[in-house]
């Protein structure tokens, strides 16, 4: 595994770390942090695959406008850049590279 991730945290967060699951894998993220930022800092590069072509996507705007950071939490698709880390979040990637539907 490559220990050098694309994003780094410039200061040690004082917030306690809590466990969330991303596609089943446990991650320890700072409580109350922006979820998209925390996932990027934890090395998550692909947040979802598009419903049209299955292309990988990750946060683009970080301000709730582009919808590329969509993840599924408790069965609802939500913008990761608009929510905060809470203990026990069960996060999955919407779409999968295998599923491709043709736009009608």
């Amino acid at each position: 595994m490559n220990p050098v991730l694309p994003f780094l945290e410039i200061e040690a967060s004082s917030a306690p770390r809590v466990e969330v699951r991303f596609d089943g894998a446990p991650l320890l993220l700072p409580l109350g942090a922006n979820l998209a930022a925390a996932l990027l800092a934890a090395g998550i590069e692909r947040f979802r695959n598009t419903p049209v072509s299955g292309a990988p996507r990750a946060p683009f705007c970080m301000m709730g406008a582009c919808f590329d950071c969509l993840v599924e939490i408790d069965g609802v698709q939500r913008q990761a850049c608009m929510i905060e880390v809470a203990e026990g979040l069960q996060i999955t990637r919407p779409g999968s590279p295998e599923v491709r539907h043709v736009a009608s």
Partner: protein
Amino acid sequence: MSHRDLVIVGAGPAGMAAATEAANAGLSVTLLDEQPRAGGQIYRDVDHVPDHRAALLGPDYTAGRDLTVALRSSPVEHVTGAVVWSIEPGFCLSYSRDGRGAQLTADRVLLATGALERPMPLPGWTLPGVMTAGAGQILLKQSGVLARSAVLVGAGPLLYLIAVQMLRAGQPPLALVETQTGRNRRAALRHLGGALRGWPYMAKGLRMLAELKRGGVPRYIGAQDIRIEGDTRAEVLCFSHRGRIRRLACETVFLHHGVVPNTQAARALGVAHHWSTQQQCFVPTLDYWGRSDVPGVFVAGDGAGIGGAKAAALSGRLAALAIACDAARLTPDERDQRARPLRSARAREQAPRPFLDTAYPPCAQALSPRDETLVCRCEEVTAGTVRAHARAGCLGPNQTKAFGRVGMGPCQGRYCGLTVTALLAEATGQTPDQTGYYRIRPPLKPVTLGELASLKTPPATGEN
């Protein structure tokens, strides 16, 4: 359902300043913003950042605390985490908060919803690892998260600001790949008078460039044919510079070629818009108070036309004075007297804009992308497809829906609308005003059934 004299959407500098001014004039005011804390884009989380990060972001950032402090000590009701998705005439606002719907009514509405990054469709711009430069800045401000190996691509002062902040944080960008040319700079010289009236901004710009030079950050000016390559994520930024092809290996690409008004809410309310040739975007049609052609609807801040944070706060206060006067809380004389210094301060703030808009025009390649470039990120529609729609007789963005799915995804055209207008205008030979823009219908953001179910009177939503 509670009722207010004034509801303001957006707690950036414009919304915060307007709310405080209006409440101090005696109006009952509610301020709604989808972010968890006040500040908007420029002052994101300004009350929340650790000292070390605040120092790195500099005094232009921490200056936002004057506005947040004034807001907190005013009687304004600030509802955080409130995503406004419908504003019906009259006015009834519907919003979601913590997974539940809520509504309130108001005599008047002020839209202070700010700006969006100008769409920058380049080959590869949808790959993970490609973000807007503003997104890079939000990561830094809100979360203290910084890209390790990033290239900044595009044009404009915000690009320099971000580069300097990254440098100060100890992770300078690998390079600045800039799309403006020497010819743009020469053309801008005819606006030098205005630039000199806005001298503090010019001085700041020159200081930033000097700091980048000392920091050894390479600048490629006049870059063309830009492409981001990578299989499942951004790996290489490829471009041509002075006749040579360059390839920079990187993990993150930050794109920026200016910001444009976020007009979604104003359009949904039926506010008239027109094309601004200077700013190369649509702006709502307003008088100098920010009053639109829809009675009771005002717009202030970058959503009314790009002017920067200080001009945004001033225009927020001006709108608040006009609203207070309309609501008979101020006489016209009191309004005009208080407005006078604000109006001249705003004119000073706006003075450097023509220089900046000419020196740093939008990237030509992204205004008219090649056929294979994706323009609609949501539905993955290419520029070539939109051009084919035009050849098949499509004249305007609203007709594209009869031809395909461009603009029909969840972002509602926020990152393709201007491109689609430009492509159709180019193909039909019409002006952007004749071509028009997407019709925006509520909900402005997707709403869940649970959020709708928790409302007593569900608002009308447009069927798309």
